[in-house]
């Protein structure tokens, strides 16, 4: 690992100030992604700003929903009573991610900020427009089994690897951000971005900003939820395809529905059109199949990931069936 300087900060303001003075520096919280990337030479910050002492470790119920600090570790969110009772989709998605050890280290903010697991991004001998703009995309013509089928560009077909983020996108969460110019918030679904011509940017966080936390609005997605994750082994692997499905049923009728997919795009992929179609419909496998067809419009595969064009709609149907009970 290329050496770096290290600063420990204890307030959000200090964190922002130190980063402003060290534009090539980086925040570090759990470190599970950043240290891995630094060991591989994918990134080499000049200074690590350790934010683990910042007061962003609370999970609180508010008047409008739930507030989770950026530094709450993944396992604490997953095990939290309120999360388990009122936001079970989030708990289920978190449990599907990583290993018990990593969930004890990885924070909510870090999970949101984690980089793609595209092997071309991780291998510094390979071209990658995300790691080195202009060098080309190794995955486009390469071994792209894990890669995107929605929203990709000819510059990048990487996917966002998170499970937690898929649930947060489905639950209409908001990301709260602090920066040199004050505080702002952004809808979770607008936080991450598509690669376009600038795949180096994973998200819309501006230089010098820090994630303070996320909020989730209150909802009735308690009983009929499911997070389906399809992967190469039973546990501890990144998703080939994942589906977060949340239904609010009135008898046999879909009163409200949320659907989001992981492993298919550069950002958590919300299935808005399928949601519109399902709202007000009666629960049936045929209806879910139609919704999946709608969701798959515009999908495009790149060779090794052709199987995702079949796996994704099947996963949508299965997740909805499991959610419907």
């Amino acid at each position: 690992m290329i050496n770096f300087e290290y600063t420990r900060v204890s307030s959000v303001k200090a964190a922002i100030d130190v980063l402003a003075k060290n534009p090539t520096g980086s925040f570090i919280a759990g470190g599970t992604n950043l240290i891995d990337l630094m060991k591989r030479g994918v990134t080499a910050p000049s200074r690590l700003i350790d934010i683990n002492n910042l007061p962003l470790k609370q999970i609180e119920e508010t008047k409008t929903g739930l507030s989770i600090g950026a530094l709450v570790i993944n396992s604490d969110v997953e095990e939290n009573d309120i999360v388990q009772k009122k936001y079970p989709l989030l708990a289920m998605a978190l449990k599907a991610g990583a290993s018990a050890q990593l969930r004890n280290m990885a924070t909510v903010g870090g999970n949101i900020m984690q980089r793609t697991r595209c092997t071309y991004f991780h291998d510094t001998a390979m071209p990658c427009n995300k790691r080195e703009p202009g060098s080309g995309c190794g995955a486009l013509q390469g071994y792209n089994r894990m890669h995107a089928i929605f929203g990709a560009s000819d510059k990048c077909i990487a996917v966002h690897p998170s499970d937690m983020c898929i649930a947060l996108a489905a639950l209409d969460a908001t990301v709260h951000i602090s920066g040199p110019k004050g505080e702002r918030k952004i809808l979770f679904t607008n936080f991450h971005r598509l690669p376009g011509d600038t795949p180096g940017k994973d998200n819309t966080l501006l230089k010098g900003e820090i994630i303070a936390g996320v909020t989730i609005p209150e909802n009735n997605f308690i009983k009929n939820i499911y997070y389906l994750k399809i992967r190469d082994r039973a546990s501890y692997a990144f998703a080939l395809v994942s589906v977060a499905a949340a239904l609010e049923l009135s008898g046999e009728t879909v009163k409200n529905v949320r659907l989001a997919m992981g492993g298919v795009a550069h950002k958590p992929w919300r299935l808005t059109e399928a949601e519109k179609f399902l709202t007000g419909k009666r629960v049936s496998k045929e209806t879910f199949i139609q919704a999946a067809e709608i969701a798959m419009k515009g999908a495009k595969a790149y060779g090794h990931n052709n199987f995702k064009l079949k796996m994704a709609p099947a996963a949508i149907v299965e997740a909805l069936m499991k959610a419907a009970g």
Partner: protein
Amino acid sequence: MSKEKIIHCKNDSCLHEGRRDFLKKSSALAALAVASPAILKAAEDDEKIAAWFEKIPLQIEVNGIAHNLNVEPRVTLLDFLREYLHLTGTKKGCDHGQCGACTVHADGKRINSCLSLAVMNEGKKITTIEGIAKGDKLHPMQEAFIRHDGFQCGYCTPGQIMSAIACIKEGHANNEDEVREFMSGNICRCGAYPNIADAIIEVKNGGYEL
């Protein structure tokens, strides 16, 4: 260039600067250093001084023993345990958080020590495989692994055992499926999984104090 640093270190102000800033500034002084025999001699200590500049004080408790040391920020907790404290029971497998061989407990929580910097564990209490037996009396999980033949080559075993103890303490060892799910961060290339799961279930049901 080793000589550069020595000269600049005579200026106390550099003690408060980072090494990169310091190198930038000192490059202008490089020419001065070349001719001076005294400084060339001093350059022998260069690496020591350079290392001193990069080190951060760390207070950490490992297996009940308090340590006060200076470490480079890039030293992982795993390397700190193995190279600084010579506690080589904790193993380096993949060094990328994929295998679990480096699992230790930090303030009671199991973590991958390869993905944590030592300096990020300031003030924490670390428990490694060396810290779980009571004198010559093995920990119940160690005994169960022996009884159930929960290993072949043994390389993953320290990580498996540390993870297994935490798995039970967390309340995630209620049946074999749950054990397998919550032990998935520990890879065993010999494939001793059935015996590892048996050992964990036995300890769970044995009502031991872990």
